[in-house]
């Protein structure tokens, strides 16, 4: 396959030029998926789901670096979908980071955060980008659905995002999440029915039903 060269990567080594072309084609989709993963429903009184743009950019940045390392090691199979490959790296990065953060946050107390007037660790600061306007902008046209997605427990949401939004197979989702296929199947079922219920309640609250 001939990869069209862009002026920007014309001087890059052949490996990198090909990789950059793959990145160019997938970057938007990666950012979109990263924003969806980085959205949290814990915005307190805010009626918007909060999207951390920093978190999304971190995820994509990390995926591109780890992706290039893997690419140089021949771990990208020619002929397979670069987007699916990058998405897997991105999702794995998110899951690892989520696990790390969960462990870290479990040990945090109010005292640790305010000891001697010191500022808390970076993860406790609200990013400048976490404004309702930004969150609204990052929303898609299907806002009720996005909000219902955010309200799902994370394990269910990840399954649903991978299979129903990003179109992973059950086996791919199971491999990415490190759970058996049967678990993916049952989580998906619960996620879909919970989502349906939330959407039904939403419509009912607004007199649409």
């Amino acid at each position, binding site marked *: 396959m001939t990869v069209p060269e862009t002026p920007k990567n014309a001087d890059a080594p052949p490996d990198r030029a090909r990789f950059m072309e793959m990145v160019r084609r997938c970057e938007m989709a990666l950012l979109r998926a990263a924003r969806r993963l980085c959205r949290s429903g814990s915005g307190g009184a805010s009626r918007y789901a909060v999207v951390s743009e920093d978190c999304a950019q971190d995820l994509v940045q990390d995926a591109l670096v780890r992706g290039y*390392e893997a690419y140089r090691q021949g771990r990208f199979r020619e002929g397979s979908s670069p987007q699916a490959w990058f998405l897997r790296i991105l999702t794995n990065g998110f899951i690892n980071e989520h696990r790390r953060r969960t462990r870290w946050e479990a040990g945090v107390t109010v005292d640790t955060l305010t000891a001697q007037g010191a500022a808390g660790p970076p993860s406790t600061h609200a990013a400048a980008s976490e404004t309702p306007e930004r969150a609204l902008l990052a929303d898609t046209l*299907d806002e009720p659905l996005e909000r219902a997605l955010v309200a799902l427990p994370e394990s269910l949401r990840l399954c649903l995002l991978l299979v129903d939004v990003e179109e992973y197979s059950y086996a791919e989702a199971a491999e990415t999440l490190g759970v058996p296929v049967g678990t993916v*199947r049952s989580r998906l079922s619960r996620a879909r029915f919970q989502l349906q219920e939330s959407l039904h309640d939403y419509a009912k609250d607004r007199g649409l039903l």
Partner: protein
Amino acid sequence: MALFLSGLSDGTLRGLTRWYAEQHTARCDHCAASLRALLALRQRLRALGHLPVTAAIPDLPDAPLQTLTPERRAAVEAAWTQIENNS
């Protein structure tokens, strides 16, 4: 039945269980309605995956970036160079 309906909605249900679920939904209005709702939901979810990153309200300033910021792009390229030098 929920698990069967979910599998029926995405086409992963096979064999006898698929046959059973199809037979059941043909006779049960409640499950048939559930299946229809699941199919519609999956369609909406799939559509989310194909929506552009840009927002529904394009006139608002500071729209979400469609690429990494220039600073992050530079950091990524520096990391790539380091990877090349290390190998």
